[in-house]
């Protein structure tokens, strides 16, 4: 009998489990883990901004989480050191620039710690992320020796009060293309700075299409470096092939052009018909007034 009861209990449990596929025994209050990360970005040694990203593992896949409110701090999570309050967008990204009010704090040290604190929501607990960076500079220059064009990039880091070369910094060196594209200058995917903090990358590519003056943009990028963060520097040089945009196609008077490029024959035909027919209509409307005038005169 006990065995029978046990079978019935198991069967009942299975029925309940199948009938209610949601996890009845799970606690509703358990929240998902929020993965918060923080990055430091500097473009051309000028623009400094922070990028916070939020994602979470839902049904086995990482999904960007939007609408998370994040407080960003410089060095300590105090109100005085608040960089800003941001909210993640549809891609789970929020950005903030350093406010002028924190200039004194920023200038006061060579190393800084950025702190991101996300606010708790119904789905996620509050969480914290940090990013520690050393102030750095990245300088790009060009060399032209023995008809070989090269790009020299030097990275220096601030040690207390002096700028010192930053060795062993991995970076990408290439040419910026349309829509954020990136073309490496040679066969190497990345380059690493030597003891003097310098990288020299030879431009092995020929006939690179540039703008109408032959300008191309050289780009050096340090990505996710533990000490320096994300650094980017650009330099425009006239090393490309001048490309004259061929807008003749769009300037043609065709049936598929804009309304300002209507074929002349069509304009002529359309306006001739419209003017002819509407001229007749206007004439006929004038005839009504003529009839009216005749009628009034007779009266």
């Amino acid at each position, binding site marked *: 009998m006990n065995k029978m009861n046990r079978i019935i209990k198991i069967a009942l449990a299975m029925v309940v489990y199948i009938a209610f596929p949601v996890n009845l025994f799970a606690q509703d209050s358990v929240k998902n883990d929020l993965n918060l990360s923080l990055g430091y970005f500097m473009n051309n040694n000028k623009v400094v901004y922070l990028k916070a990203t939020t994602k979470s593992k839902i049904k086995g896949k990482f999904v960007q989480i939007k609408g998370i409110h994040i407080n960003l701090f410089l060095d300590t999570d105090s109100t005085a050191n608040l960089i800003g309050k941001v909210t993640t967008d549809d891609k789970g990204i929020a950005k903030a620039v350093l406010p002028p009010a924190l200039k004194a704090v920023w200038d006061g040290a060579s190393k800084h710690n950025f702190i991101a604190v996300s606010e708790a929501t119904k789905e996620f607990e509050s969480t914290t992320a940090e990013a520690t960076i050393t102030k750095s500079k990245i300088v790009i220059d060009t060399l032209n020796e023995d008809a070989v064009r090269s790009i020299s990039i030097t990275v220096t880091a601030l040690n207390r009060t002096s700028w010192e070369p930053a060795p062993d910094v991995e970076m990408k060196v290439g040419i910026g293309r349309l829509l954020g594209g990136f073309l490496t200058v040679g066969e190497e995917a990345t380059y690493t700075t030597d003891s003097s903090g310098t990288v020299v990358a030879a431009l092995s590519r020929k006939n690179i299409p540039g703008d109408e003056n032959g300008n191309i943009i050289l780009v050096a990028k340090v990505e996710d470096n533990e000490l320096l963060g994300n650094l980017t520097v650009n330099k425009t040089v006239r090393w490309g092939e001048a490309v004259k945009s061929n807008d003749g196609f769009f300037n043609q008077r065709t*049936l*598929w*052009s*804009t*309304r300002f490029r*209507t*074929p002349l024959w*069509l*304009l002529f035909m*359309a306006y001739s018909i*419209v003017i002819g*027919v*509407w001229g*007749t*209509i206007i*004439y*006929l*409307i004038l*005839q*009504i007034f*003529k*009839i*009216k005038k*005749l*009628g*009034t005169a*007779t*009266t």
Partner: protein
Amino acid sequence: MENVTSLSSEKIIHDLLPQKFGKRGMIWTSVLILLCLLGAVAYFRQLKNGLVVTNMRDYASWGIYISNFVFFVAISLVGSLITAIFRLANVKWATPLTRIAEIIAVSAIVFASLIIIVDMGRPERVLNLFTHGRIQSPIMWDVIVISTYFVISLLLLYFPLLPDLKIMIRFKEKSSNALNKLYRFQGSFWNGTAAQFKISERSITILCIAIIPVAFSIHTVTSWLFATTYRAGWDSTNFGAYFISGAFLVGAGAVVVAMYIFRKFYQLEKYITELHFEKMGRIVVMLALLYLYFNINEYMVPAFKMKKSEEAHLSGLFTGDYALMFWFAIVVGMIIPILLLLFKKGRKPLPMFIVGVMIVVGAWFKRYLIVTPTLLHPFLPIQDVPANYHHYFPSWEEWAIAIGSLSGALLIITFFARIYPIIPIQETITEQHEQDEQNY
């Protein structure tokens, strides 16, 4: 007025002056107004919630609204047939039908314009046609020819109305004060002098000449909205003539229906005689044969080749989902009318009325078949669309708006017949006098 036996002018005026609605007229008008209101409610819902209330999706982006538009455009052609072509050909017997034909044309073209705006979803964007319109687009041509045709039709309605307005002003005791004010505003200056008649007659002749190419344009351009796109069922060089022949048929069918109704409910047997039905019957059978000929061209030739890309579309029409509707439109809208009208008894008023209704209903479904099935079979199918995108059946809002628009067109005709003489009085009197003189 070949069959009108010597009627005095007073008698003609008495018979043809607008009559107040009777009980049946009030019920008819109330039903039409209710249907229009239902359509307005549905349109309000569409404006509020967007085109999502319709069942038009990525495949069937043109549905019942565009079918209705093509139907209205088609039916409006009758104005040029009865009024212009017959007048220029000096066909005297058609005089009592001219105003019926013109008001059908005007009301149809008004709702053709409105239903296009309904189909746009965002009505204010109609202004973009004027601010950003491209003359290269057939849609722009359609806007131009529709507005032109509307104005010409209005003028063609107005000029022959001038002498009748004077008669109605003379018999002011037959109308309300408001209507008398309207008549005076529109035609008090008409004295019927020789000079006025001369200008009026010349203007009508010019209008009759002008309206024919414009009417042909409106139907050709509407057909080009389809034929200039590369799709199964639309990719045809024959579409202009196909549309015009179909438009003549449905327009003539509509006039026959209207003739019968006005004759019966306004007691116009002396003016719209069996002879008119007999002659209209001959015209309708000729037009039905012509349209059938174009239909055979449009369907048999592609079916003979049965190109892979058109197979799904044609099979859907002949034996598939749309087979019932397709064969209904062909058999009820063309073949049965032809068979009935070939016999003299078929050209009597009641059989003609039934045939007219069959033609008009068949024509409406024919327009639906021209528009929608093609869209469901694109050459390049969209990937991963929901299953319901592959089918189209209008939502209740679409039905209500379509029925509301049809009711609106009928309402315009109804109110017109209430306010103005539906048969031209002055022309009837003149022709009566001419006939009397000949007899004398």
